[in-house]
């Protein structure tokens, strides 16, 4: 027998900014809405009119809708109800909330990806203010943070979130699932202003190619011109072995990330704070990414309470060559950003080297010397990289040489 009652969303004493909807489609008697909400006095009427508009959109005239609301925003209520509807009827229709103008931005290949904040894809309460914390990227996760039975409704919620939440300029990323489900996930996010897709548990170029193909078909269908970048995540020994091949699989790949929880599990070892067990994998991944001219990105640090350990972790990560790290709590963002940014000593030293190089060039000297030390070209190149980074981060003026006091210049 065909299912006639559907449940979507979440409720309970700890749930906020979400709702649980029980939908029963009837054969007659019109629409009954039973609303329990802590914002009933303020939004009761608007919730009811949203429900009735959405059901009309899907051609449902007779139904009983029970809503247990804990202050869900309209796009959340709409997502929950659409999920319930789609459990009961088969339809290609999508009830799309307005696409925020403020969110219609695209990103570039070489932008900073120091910090990217993971948000569970079925927990709207964590998404609403996520953009305020100045992460370089926001990841709406459809994979490991979503329970298997909630995967379908998370897609619709993430789709609506991409259209409705102002992420204040953060790169909008979605981590899709593995395999067929992952390819299907793309249909819920590509047409809705996503900037980058994280592809989990990559072990070969093959799946990347499938993802790339699916994306270009969707883009063609919706006539989308802007880039959707890819960031494969390497999370196994096989993935590490194939990391260069993966890094080169598509020109849309801008970064390669490592996931150490799964990697250490694959090796059967314990993940430690020092990280000796993953040293090879991390170094190998950095080299592969560099060789493919993309950004190497480190794994998340899971102790959200220990900011000092995080700081140490970031310094190690930076010293290995990584250019960014995942975050699972907004408080980790400033620590990570600061860690990957060049510090004042590095900037000052680099300024001296670059200045010595420029002076030598002006004087037509072939050899660059700083004090009694000869400076090799790679040293200059590294210093120039740090200067460029400092300028892009706003730590140094673009005209810093001209702005130097005269005797230094």
């Amino acid at each position, binding site marked *: 027998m065909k299912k006639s009652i559907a449940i979507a969303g979440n409720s309970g004493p700890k749930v906020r900014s979400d709702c649980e909807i029980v939908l029963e489609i009837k054969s007659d008697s019109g629409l009954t809405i039973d609303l329990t909400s802590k914002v009933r006095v*303020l939004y009761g*009427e608007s919730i009811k009119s949203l429900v009735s508009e959405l059901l009309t959109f899907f051609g449902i005239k007779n139904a009983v809708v029970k809503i247990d609301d804990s202050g869900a*925003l309209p796009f959340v209520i709409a997502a929950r109800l659409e999920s319930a509807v789609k459990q009961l009827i088969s339809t290609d229709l999508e009830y799309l909330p307005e696409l925020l103008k403020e969110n219609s931005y695209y990103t570039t290949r070489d932008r900073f990806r120091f910090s990217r904040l993971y948000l569970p894809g079925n927990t709207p309460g964590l998404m609403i203010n996520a953009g*305020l914390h100045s992460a370089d990227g926001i990841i709406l996760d459809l994979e490991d943070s979503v329970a298997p039975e909630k995967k379908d409704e998370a897609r619709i919620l993430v789709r609506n979130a991409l259209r409705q939440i102002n992420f204040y300029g953060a790169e909008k990323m979605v981590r899709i699932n593995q395999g067929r489900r992952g390819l299907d996930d793309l249909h819920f996010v590509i047409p809705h202003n996503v900037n980058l897709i994280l592809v989990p548990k990559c072990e070969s170029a093959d799946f990347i190619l499938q993802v790339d193909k699916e994306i270009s078909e969707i883009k063609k269908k919706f006539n989308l011109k802007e880039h959707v970048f890819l960031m494969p995540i390497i999370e196994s020994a096989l993935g590490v072995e194939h990391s260069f091949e993966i890094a080169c699989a598509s020109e849309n790949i801008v970064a390669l990330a490592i996931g150490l929880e799964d990697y250490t599990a694959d090796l059967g070892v314990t993940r430690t704070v020092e990280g000796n067990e993953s040293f090879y994998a991390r170094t190998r991944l950095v080299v592969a990414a560099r060789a493919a001219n993309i950004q190497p990105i480190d794994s998340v640090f899971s102790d959200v309470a220990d900011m000092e350990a995080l700081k140490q972790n970031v310094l190690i990560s930076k010293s290995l060559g990584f250019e960014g790290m995942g975050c699972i709590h*907004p408080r980790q963002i400033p620590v990570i950003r600061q860690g990957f940014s060049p510090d004042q000593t590095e900037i000052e030293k680099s300024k001296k080297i670059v200045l010595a190089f420029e002076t030598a060039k002006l004087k037509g000297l072939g050899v660059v010397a700083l004090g009694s030390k000869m400076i090799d070209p790679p040293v200059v190149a590294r210093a120039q990289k740090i200067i460029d980074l400092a300028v892009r981060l706003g730590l140094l003026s673009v005209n810093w040489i001209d702005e130097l006091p005269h005797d230094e210049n």
Partner: protein
Amino acid sequence: MPVKTVINAAGRSVPLEINGKPVIPFKGVGMHKPDGRKYSPPIPTCSDYPDDGNKVVGSLEEALRKCGLCDGMTISTHHHLRDGDLISNKVFELASTMGIKDMVWFPSASFPCNDPLIKYLDDGTINRIEGSMNGPLGRYVSEGRMKGTAVLRSHGGRVQAIQDGEVRIDIAVLAAPTSDAFGNARGTGGSSACGVLGYAKADYMYAGKVIVVTDNLVDLPCFPMEIEGNYVDYVVVVDKIGIPEKIVSGTTQITRSPDRLLIAELTASFLEISGILKDGVAIQAGAGGTSLAIAVFVHQILKNKGWKSKFGFGGSTKYMVRMLEEGQMGFILDAQVFDLDSVKSIENNPNHVPYSVFNAYNYHSKGNLTSMMDIMILGATEVDLNFNGNVVTHSDGYLLHGIGGWQNCLHARNVILPIPLFRDRIPVIVDEVTTLCGPGELIDVIITERGIAINPLRQDLIDSVKGSGLPLRTLKELKDEAEKICGVPQKPQFEEDIVAAIKWVDGTVIDVVRKIKTV
């Protein structure tokens, strides 16, 4: 019966009479200056009291009888035992069995533990509450179920009302963690220690009769004495005056919400950049999670700069105690303590001093501590486009909080409200506050996670942060952003009936709460 109302100086429609007694509508900040003399309680005589100083009687019931408990009396209690108080409810339970009717409960605040009093409001033992009403009690009042009209006052307004004779306390029943048989009492010691008894001072000085209830009777003299025994009529010894773990929280914690931490961080930056935070600053912040986080950030700034706050005004928490102990704060002046670290500190640290609300908050006195504070961190349930604040009702119209010291604290030099732009889906910035508790002219800065709004009256503050990169916005811009996210809320519907009056610090009526229209 329709009540006669007038429009007060804040533009609110308020009655001229509450509970059968004439009241004065709000005239504007600092405009109401009463003449006359303070109220005085009856003159007692030593010969009516035992020469050996032993005022202990057998039970609370006996003490109440000896005080002449009868219909219509006003009973006061203090809230230092917070949610662990076992005494307030006991008074009305006894009064109910004695068949007493139409009493007025005049607490310095109420807590969820007082919800059982609804039973005595229902059976007519209590006519009304004049004090704070939270949770179910607030709901009860909002739904128009209380016989009399509630009167909400600030901590200072309560002292003012007692001193000016607006409220005449017949019997003050004062729970004391430690007392001697003469009635000298304090807030420390014993198993129900609450730290200080600052809110009980006006009660014992002005009440007709005073009963001290303790579970820790010590030999005379109980020292240091916060309640002086020569104001006390009877002492009652019981097994337990309170539930210790509910009197003070074992530990207060800063917020873990990243959004609240963001607000706290922004607030600390604002304080630093504007120059309000400086060496020698006087600070008050509450015990809410965001305020505690602000205290931690402020502490760090003081430390980094080598500055010291000359004093902080409590309610104290371990975060303030840490500033005192690490040398970034000269004194803590305290009217109440919130956690065990603070109880310990006030017992042991001579620079952590009990300080009564009398000195801090009473507007009808010769100066208040609050106007000398440089930084005042407060909250609000709503703020409107004119910077007016509401702390007693929520946007849905229900009475849910007391005023506490909020109105009194508005007199500080810089009043800063760090608040989220919306709570769940409920916008905090509105066109007009549901209930007016504090006039906008006294509220200087609103700090939300999406920007900072400075009152246009404070051009000096606006200038001080110009070009700093702080996200400055107008309240209108913030309100529009919240409504874009949450939707434009409907307004709650009210009946004509007035269920509660909101007093300003000078005893005038600044606003009223009307009965909720239930569908």
